[in-house]
């Protein structure tokens, strides 16, 4: 437990070293109507050259946040600085920020090449240089030779990549991406994810990347901010977010998780149904609680005597109620005396496959069971 606490502190300290923050958002707030807080008091610092993922469910205020950074929405009592330059009240065209819109917003009356060249033209880049840079940008998003097409002659995914090229080609000091991969097929999305990450690291562009896809956030980003109902639920490295969620919402939203109702008996002891399990109660000593366990952190063995199990692990007897084949993993739903645990076993490593109705033993480490006070993060 001791080391757990320490690990929690170190990355937090790292991300808060204010002097090296490149993009600083201070108290970002947007209210619609009288009392609807679309974005509520966000504080985020992004160090230079880093990729921040803003992750959250639909409608949590991601796009609104991005639009405020870009200057397309007025901000209510907040401050945004880039590299020490206060841009809170600068008009969008003076911010030097590249923006890829959720719905691309390619100019329909211009060809792809004209779209990509637009930002260069605004910066007074000469014709010859502009043509080269446009060609280079289109190659970067794997659309070489598409310059003469009109946006409407391209697929959604291709348009999205043109939008990316249009934003990248101006080499902005900050790049904002609003779900830039949402319309790509799985394969292309994987490729583009790597591509964007590669481009971002090569050009060292500080980037804010909005997504509601947690895999995207975890795999691509240096930092992830999880948003929930306009508030920042947690900001940390992908590992922080996944391994040490700050509240129940983050635990539930990022990655698949079993959530079990229980009650905290004492520090690091939670009662679920009739059993008491050692766990991580994160300092709590009493009260109703929810326990979270990742499916793949539960190991399954054929039923055997409980006394043979090491005291250092948690174990529960259960019965398989459903088997779901997903390809790389098999999912077993297991009934452990009233609660259902979803577990995952990699098909490659599976020593054993189980049938529906089979009795087996579920085991997991106490530190893989995170307990949150009921109602934390709703």
């Amino acid at each position, binding site marked *: 437990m001791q080391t757990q606490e320490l690990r929690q502190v170190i990355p937090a300290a790292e991300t808060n070293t204010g002097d090296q923050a490149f993009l600083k958002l201070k108290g970002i707030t947007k209210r619609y109507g009288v009392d609807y807080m679309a974005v509520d008091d966000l504080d985020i610092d992004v160090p230079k050259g880093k990729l921040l993922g803003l992750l959250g469910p639909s409608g949590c205020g991601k796009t609104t946040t991005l639009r405020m950074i*870009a*200057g*397309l929405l007025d901000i209510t009592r907040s401050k945004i600085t880039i590299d020490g330059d206060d841009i809170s009240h600068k*008009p*969008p*065209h*003076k*911010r*030097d*920020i*590249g*923006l890829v*819109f959720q*719905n691309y*917003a*390619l*100019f*329909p*009356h211009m060809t792809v090449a004209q779209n990509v060249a*637009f*930002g260069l033209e*605004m*910066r007074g880049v000469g014709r010859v240089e502009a043509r080269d840079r446009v060609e280079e940008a289109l190659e970067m998003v794997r659309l070489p030779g598409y310059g003469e097409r009109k946006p409407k002659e391209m697929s959604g995914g291709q348009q999205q990549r043109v939008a990316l090229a*249009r*934003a990248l080609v*101006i080499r902005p000091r900050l790049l904002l991406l609003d779900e830039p991969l949402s319309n790509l097929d799985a394969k292309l999305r994987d490729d583009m994810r790597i591509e964007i990450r590669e481009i971002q690291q090569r050009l060292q562009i500080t980037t804010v990347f909005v997504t509601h896809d947690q895999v995207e956030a975890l795999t691509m980003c240096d930092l992830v901010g999880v948003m929930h109902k306009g508030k920042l639920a947690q900001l940390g490295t992908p590992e922080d977010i996944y391994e040490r969620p700050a509240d129940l919402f983050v635990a539930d939203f990022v990655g698949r998780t079993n959530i079990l109702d229980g009650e905290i008996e004492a520090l690091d002891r939670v009662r679920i149904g009739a059993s008491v399990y050692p766990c991580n109660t994160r300092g709590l000593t009493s009260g109703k609680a929810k326990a979270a366990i990742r499916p793949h952190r539960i190991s399954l063995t054929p039923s055997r005597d409980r006394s043979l199990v090491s005291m250092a692990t948690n174990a529960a007897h259960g019965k398989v109620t459903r088997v779901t084949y997903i390809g790389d993993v098999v999912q077993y739903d297991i009934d452990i005396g009233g609660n259902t645990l979803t577990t995952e076993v990699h098909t490659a490593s599976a020593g054993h496959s189980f049938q529906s109705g089979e009795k087996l033993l579920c085991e997991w480490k106490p530190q893989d069971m995170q307990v949150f006070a009921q109602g934390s993060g709703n």
Partner: protein
Amino acid sequence: MAAITSSVPFAEAPARRKTFPFLLIALLLPMAIINFVAFVLPVIRLGMISFIESRSGGVLTNNYTLENYADFFTDSFSIELVSNSLILGFGVTLITLCCAYPIALFLHRVSPKWRNMLFVITVSPLLVSSVVRTYGWMVILGDQGVFNGILMSSGIIDSPLRLTNNTLGVFIGMVEVLIPYMALSLIAGFGRLENVYEEAAASLGANSWTRFRRVILPLTAPGIALGCLLCFVLSISSFITPKLLGGGRVFLLATEIYDQAVIQLEWPTAAAISVIVLIIFGLALAVYSRVVKRFD
């Protein structure tokens, strides 16, 4: 009656694929017949009359000649008519565009809550006949009119400004009559204009003037072309407003056609001028379709 008509689509529904061309033709036929009888035939007849040898007293002979056109193109007065009409057409169209464009842009952007109401207000002048509106302008702009009255009684001017019975009066009246048409066409052609394009342009570094020039203007070009075509044609063919507000001192192709046909009874001459006006419209239409193609 209602029962019978409503039962027709149901009865035909199963055989829909087969009867579709029939239905299409059935729906188009009435208008096609009306168009043929009331437009195509008269235009052909008009073309023929324009070649008939002119005889006083409205008598139509059987001799065909090019004289009507030759007379028109050699007469300096008729050249003046053409240039007056073109100046009026282009001028009124341009001014109307400048007046209506901001209105249309505003209506396009205003929140849907207000849009319908403001839209109705914009086109409401169409509910009053343009003759009535023209008389209204005479009351306002005349020498003893409201406008001059206010200026004179407040001592700003000593003698009335000449606002009617001249080209200025015709311009004012025509622009006001045509603004609703222009606004309607503009809004109809603004379909592609969305706020995100402006935002995208802004994020790429375009200031508001550049955004207008490079994004808003091209995206609204179809609406502009449509509105200009309509207003150009309407202003060249209109003759009530020029007659009333021009006080017989503004000479245009449309007023000349009226004079020749109704007062002089020189039908062949009137027909020849009408054909020339039709040719001008045809040219305008050609320009329009090129502009639309270019901005598509």
